[in-house]
């Protein structure tokens, strides 16, 4: 059966300052990735990006993001991701970088994505608990 195939990339956004992480939206990441691809791969990269690239899901608390790329040439677009140094508009730039954890189709991504997510949620809850106790 002929089906339109995409590749999903599970990435983790790493920041040094956790409070800035919560301000990110899907649109910010979309623009940041597009801009990085344009910088590195020029017009060809921008054209490849415009067809079927989107940010499928973003969890600002844990920093997990699903990116969808077209199957043809996803490696080229993936190679532009390490060059992202900050996300955000000119007024609010969050310095960060993307760490790719898993590549696959949608089913495997949602299955794999849960594991590091739950780990991060647990550690986040623990650190926030201790922070609350300390502030009191």
């Amino acid at each position, binding site marked *: 059966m002929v089906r339109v195939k995409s590749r999903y990339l599970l990435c983790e956004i*790493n920041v*040094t300052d956790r409070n800035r992480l919560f301000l990110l939206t899907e649109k910010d990441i979309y623009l940041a990735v597009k801009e990085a691809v344009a*910088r590195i791969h020029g017009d060809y990269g921008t054209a490849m990006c415009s067809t079927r690239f989107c940010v499928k899901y973003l969890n600002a608390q844990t920093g997990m993001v699903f990116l969808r790329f077209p199957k043809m040439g996803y*490696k080229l677009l*993936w*190679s532009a*991701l*390490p*060059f992202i*140094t900050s996300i955000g508009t000119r007024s609010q730039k969050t*310095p*960060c*970088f*993307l*760490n*790719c*954890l898993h590549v696959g189709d949608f089913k495997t991504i949602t299955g794999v994505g849960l594991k590091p997510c739950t780990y991060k949620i647990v550690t986040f809850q623990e650190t926030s608990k201790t922070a609350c106790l300390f502030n009191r």
Partner: protein
Amino acid sequence: MWLFQIIINMSVFMDLNLTFSADKSNMQQLIDMAAHLGFSTVAVNYTFEPTGKKKQAIPLPKPIDELIDQLPIVQGRSRPIRVLNRLTLVMSDLNHYRPNSAEYAKFDLLAVQPTTEKVFHAACTQLDVDVISVPMTEKLAFFFKKAPVNMAAERGVAFEVSYAPAIRDATMRRYTIANAISLAQACKGKNVLVSSAAAKPLELRGPYDIINLCSLIGLSDEAAKRSVSCLCRSLLLHAETRTTASGVISTKKCCDSSPSQQEAPSTPGDVDQGGAPAAKRVKSQLTD
């Protein structure tokens, strides 16, 4: 042969170039980030550039306990991250190199960054180093020729490509990619070590991202994965034999052998306890 296959299948990632800075909190964050990304071993790099005829002191490596308080646990494994010391000599003249110097023995890895063709040729053929660092931030003053590069590959010396300058600046990016491509073509993809020269924690990248970056340079997927995992491991073994290779300590060839290593001395009999601490020797015999 089966040992060879075990070494190929391991996915232990290492980043053998983290720039040393005197700021303790920065180093702590850097190593925390490396552990978070999944690197099981990192090496803190001290750069030393001997200039002029005066004898300058080679910087002493700070012991790891002074550098960071507590070693973070690598994400995905249960062991804490291993931090090593590395020295990079930026050399333009062969007289600057002091062979078998006692100061070199304090570092776990020794690298040389040649700036002229003579030094490059000597580094590939004679000098007792582990890594030849290719300067990424400027146009190469010399071309890579296949003959010294192949000799270096036979000796087990790796060529290093650093990617942090590429992330910082656009012109650096052009030089980095250009130099890296010419290096990869000369080496045919073997013995190319890819590492960050990260000064800040935000300049590090995850191992799979680095593997993908290598496709820009012209390395195949296998070669890229090898450059972040197997090659680093064989380099550490090569470095161990460098410190103990005066024939005084015997290394058992069956445990220490790796495909690119040619210098493991196999003198039977003499075992000297004074050279390397026992913990270090035992570690090299363990397969991670």
